[in-house]
């Protein structure tokens, strides 16, 4: 298989992908790094000198920073909690024998294919609108005052919308993992007299642990970057300004590129921490 001729051909075939990705990673990242040390306001005079680490200090000391960190943590944590818990339950449910399993699966998975702008707007208007939304109708039906979702319960609303989008992902992966569980293992446990709950704790959950870790890591990386859902609903107001959204506002809305770039570098570092864990797991998988 590995003769000299095939090895050099292989290198040639790999080159374009490596060069493209290298360029895609290095060029913008280097620019961001450079901008982050500059006072750079494209709309107000452009480049105004080097400022060292001033942008990094200003970004973390600005009054918007900690609230944005808090918003990010609450949204990511909330969505993870909901999707992983419900995902496990749903996966177990879908693994049971039933009629029309295929159709149910399709119903459950569907939200993942809805583009973020659509799900944001549909939820915002048709469900969460305080006057005409379906949820308001429901509240009034029970005689309650409708909640003004996106301002009074803004975080909960965003978490709900994003969870609805990501629950299918968690369910699908956990279901795949459950289906790979050797049924003889469960039968052995049943023969050993383990009741349902302890079978869940001692066999199903440990078997799922790797899949759960992967779901958490991948979702975290994607959730740290959610943008469109906030863009079309609250536009970052009512405490829903996440780190990603804050950087976006600094860079494109207020055109303070230096400050935004420093924030961008923070975001890169943060994402890399999670990426490192994910890559360790995936890497182990490669060795098999």
């Amino acid at each position, binding site marked *: 298989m*590995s003769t000299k001729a095939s090895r050099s051909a292989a290198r040639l075939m790999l080159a374009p992908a490596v060069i493209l990705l290298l360029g895609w990673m290095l060029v913008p990242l280097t620019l961001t790094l450079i901008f982050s040390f500059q006072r750079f306001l494209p709309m107000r005079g452009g480049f105004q000198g080097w400022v060292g680490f001033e942008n990094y200090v200003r970004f973390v000391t600005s009054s918007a920073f900690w609230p944005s960190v808090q918003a990010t943590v609450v949204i990511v944590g909330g969505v993870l909690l909901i999707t992983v818990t419900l995902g496990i339950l749903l996966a177990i449910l879908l693994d049971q024998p039933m009629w029309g399993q295929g159709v149910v699966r399709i119903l459950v998975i569907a939200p993942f294919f809805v583009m973020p702008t659509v799900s944001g707007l549909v939820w915002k208007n048709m469900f969460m609108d305080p006057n005409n939304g379906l949820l308001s109708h429901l509240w009034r039906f029970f005689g309650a005052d409708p909640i003004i979702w996106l301002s009074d319960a803004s975080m909960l609303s965003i978490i709900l919308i994003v969870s609805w989008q990501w629950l299918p992902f968690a369910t699908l992966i956990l279901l795949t993992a459950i289906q790979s569980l050797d049924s003889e293992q469960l039968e052995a446990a049943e023969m050993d007299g383990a009741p349902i709950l302890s079978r869940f704790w001692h066999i199903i959950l440990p078997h799922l642990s790797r899949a759960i870790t992967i779901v958490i890591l991948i979702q975290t990386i994607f959730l740290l970057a959610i943008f469109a859902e906030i863009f079309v609903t609250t536009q970052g107001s009512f405490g829903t300004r996440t780190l990603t959204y804050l950087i976006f506002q600094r860079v494109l809305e207020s055109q303070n590129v230096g400050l935004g770039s420093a924030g961008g570098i923070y975001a890169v570092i943060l994402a890399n921490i999670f990426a490192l864990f994910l890559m360790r797991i995936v890497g182990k998988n490669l060795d098999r």
Partner: protein
Amino acid sequence: MGQIVLEQVTKSFGDVTVIPPLDLTIEDGEFAVFVGPSGCGKSTLLRLIAGLEDVTSGEIRIDGKECASIPPARRGLAMVFQSYALYPHMTVRKNIAFPLRMAGFDRAEQDRRVEQAAAVLNLTDYLDRRPGQLSGGQRQRVAIGRAIVREPAAFLFDEPLSNLDAALRVGMRLEISELHNRLQTTMIYVTHDQVEAMTMADKIVVLRAGHVEQVGSPLDLYRAPRNLFVAGFIGSPKMNLIEGEEAVKHNATTIGIRPEHISISESEGRWSGIVGVSEHLGSDTFFHVHKTGLADSITVRADGEVGFKHGARIHMTPRDDMIHRFDEKGLRIA
């Protein structure tokens, strides 16, 4: 037509040397079997000959032509793989015709040769099926068919029978031997099963850790194993190896005696012991005898009708002319 010569061939993967310098000649028309335990380098050696791996140093000559720079496709060899390696998306007919298509034969010639091979291999009824619809034995035959249509200078077999069940294996063994008798083409056959080696080979090459331990005809190896490794590897059940006092009596460090060269008696004999497990094969019975004071267990072959109870004391006498003697390095004493 198909003489293969290996001269000072070595192969290393990084720092690991799999084949130390090795010389070997396989004559035209010979059925050579590479045999050895797993990891002994026998498959690597085959792949070096095939050209699927580059040699690290040394020369491989096929019909006198040095072929380091010749790609596998143009070495004129055909290979049958352990997993059969059939193309799953092609019918049996297309699988067998593939090498002909690559060699640029026209359709009529392709069809003629495929039909011919299929007839020989009893595959005529299956030509339009896909490999997925065939049994293991049929797949094996398709793989062989794909090899023979090319009329290669030599066939290379890489453990071709190891995925078949026991009964089929015996049948395919005969078919391959039959094929060799008819074609008289050089065949190199890799296996870890010494029974396959004994039954099929003109020449057996016993390998251990990349070293050639012994080369010879099956009977040469059976009668005169050059060292303890070959002695233990060739023959089934294994040769009994005895050390200590009994060996010293024969001026050796170790002596070996095959189960079939020990006679057995209820009342008298040179050695005695207690019968443990006995395996009744019908034609033969093998007794595993313990507490002989010679080795943990001595295996003895007896006629199928002979029966001793578990725990019975029996007596054994080895045939003196069939005792193999080995020195402290494990080498045969002539």
